[in-house]
């Protein structure tokens, strides 16, 4: 220090005047309390965009909704590209009362909360902001939104809450901090070599965040012809098996690309496989 002698932060006893640490701790407590009645929280992740992660999430939710009597919920953490609510036919407006915000109900009673329920149709996510230096605070705000989706949505009692994460590993690390007892993560890939590389990176980040990898789901694993029912090749590569071998986890399902709409024909196979690796 220079000529002025003064104590540093840790040398000054007591909390700061704003008690910011207490405010943050209170936020974390709200998450913990809200998730207290949920059997397990599982993240659906991928290092790559466009692999059909939300499609897989919605299919798992739908497949398990009938066999988990305590109920299934889906939190769409993909704030900028939310699609899972549409796949599950969940729509707003959402009810708001003193307990919090109530999730929308989708197919088979799946509880859904998503930024898609809050935005004007077709409009991108836009923050109220000072108009510059967005890079400084945008990530913080996105984590704050995820925290509120966990803490302020009246999830009630559920057997399973699936969290559909955006591409990349950042949000999974945020989720792991917010939900210390996260039961695990499922990785979604397509067969290609590019996908193997980027999903592999995200899976390594998952392990670094101390989150258990439960398995790999290979989506778009060939093309299922709607006419003859046969499945032909779509992407070269075998990323599902390669990732499973590298990380010592099972390939839970291979889902071919269907030109027909949701849900996929492999719904039962997929949900059977996922249910088998529940912690």
């Amino acid at each position, binding site marked *: 220090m220079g000529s002025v002698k003064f104590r540093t932060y840790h040398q000054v006893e007591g909390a700061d*005047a*704003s008690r910011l640490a207490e405010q943050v701790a*209170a936020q974390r407590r709200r998450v913990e309390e809200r998730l207290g009645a949920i059997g397990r929280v599982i993240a659906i992740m991928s290092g790559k965009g466009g692999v059909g992660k939300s499609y897989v999430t919605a299919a798992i939710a739908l497949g398990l909704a009938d066999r988990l009597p305590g109920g299934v919920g889906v939190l769409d953490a993909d704030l900028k590209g939310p699609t899972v609510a549409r796949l599950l036919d969940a729509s*707003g407006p959402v009810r708001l009362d003193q307990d919090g*915000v109530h999730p929308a109900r989708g197919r088979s009673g799946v509880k859904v909360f998503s930024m898609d329920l809050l*935005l004007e149709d077709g409009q991108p996510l*836009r*923050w109220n902001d000072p108009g510059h230096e967005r890079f400084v605070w945008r990530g913080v705000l996105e984590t704050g939104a995820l925290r509120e989706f966990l803490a302020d949505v009246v999830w009630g009692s559920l057997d399973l809450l699936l969290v559909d994460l955006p591409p990349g590993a950042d949000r999974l690390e945020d989720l792991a901090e917010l939900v210390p007892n996260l039961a695990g993560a499922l990785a979604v890939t397509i067969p290609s070599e590019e996908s193997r590389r980027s999903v592999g990176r995200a899976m390594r980040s998952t392990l670094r965040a101390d989150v258990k990898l439960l398995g790999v789901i290979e989506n778009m694993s060939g093309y299922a012809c709607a006419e003859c029912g046969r499945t032909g090749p779509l992407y070269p590569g075998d990323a599902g098996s390669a990732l499973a071998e590298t990380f010592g986890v099972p390939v839970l399902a291979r889902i071919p690309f269907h030109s027909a709409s949701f849900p996929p024909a492999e719904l039962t196979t997929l949900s059977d496989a996922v249910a088998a690796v529940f912690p």
Partner: protein
Amino acid sequence: MKFLCIDCDRQMEFEERAVPGDGTFAAAFRCPACGRRVAMLANPMETQLVGSLGVRIGGRTLDEEPLELVRSSVQGRDDAFREDPPPGARSTGRPRWSAAAEERLARVPGFVRGMVRKIYNDYALERDIAELTPEIMDRARAELGLEGM
């Protein structure tokens, strides 16, 4: 963040905040020993960063509203929420809103308007304020640190 009065070697205490409405934020701190006051002035980016954490400089005086950060930060649809009125006691004990205050509230986007109304209602109820006016709203904004509301 702690403010230290170097002369007295005492941590300064939070005194008050101001939200001028231009995206900036100000807070005053006072030394409990010598009474010296300093002002912390935050630019819009710093104000936004602190706001993004969902915390209040100087501490919270009202409980956090559901989806408070999202509702105050996102440009969402006006009809996103179907708001149930709070239980009986509150509905009979609500403060009046002057025409000018209602007009000002009407300028708040529909996505966040319900939450803003509730915050002002709670503020007035806690202080036995019978009627909300723009002046009371200004005071509440400053006391509660409600940037953009």
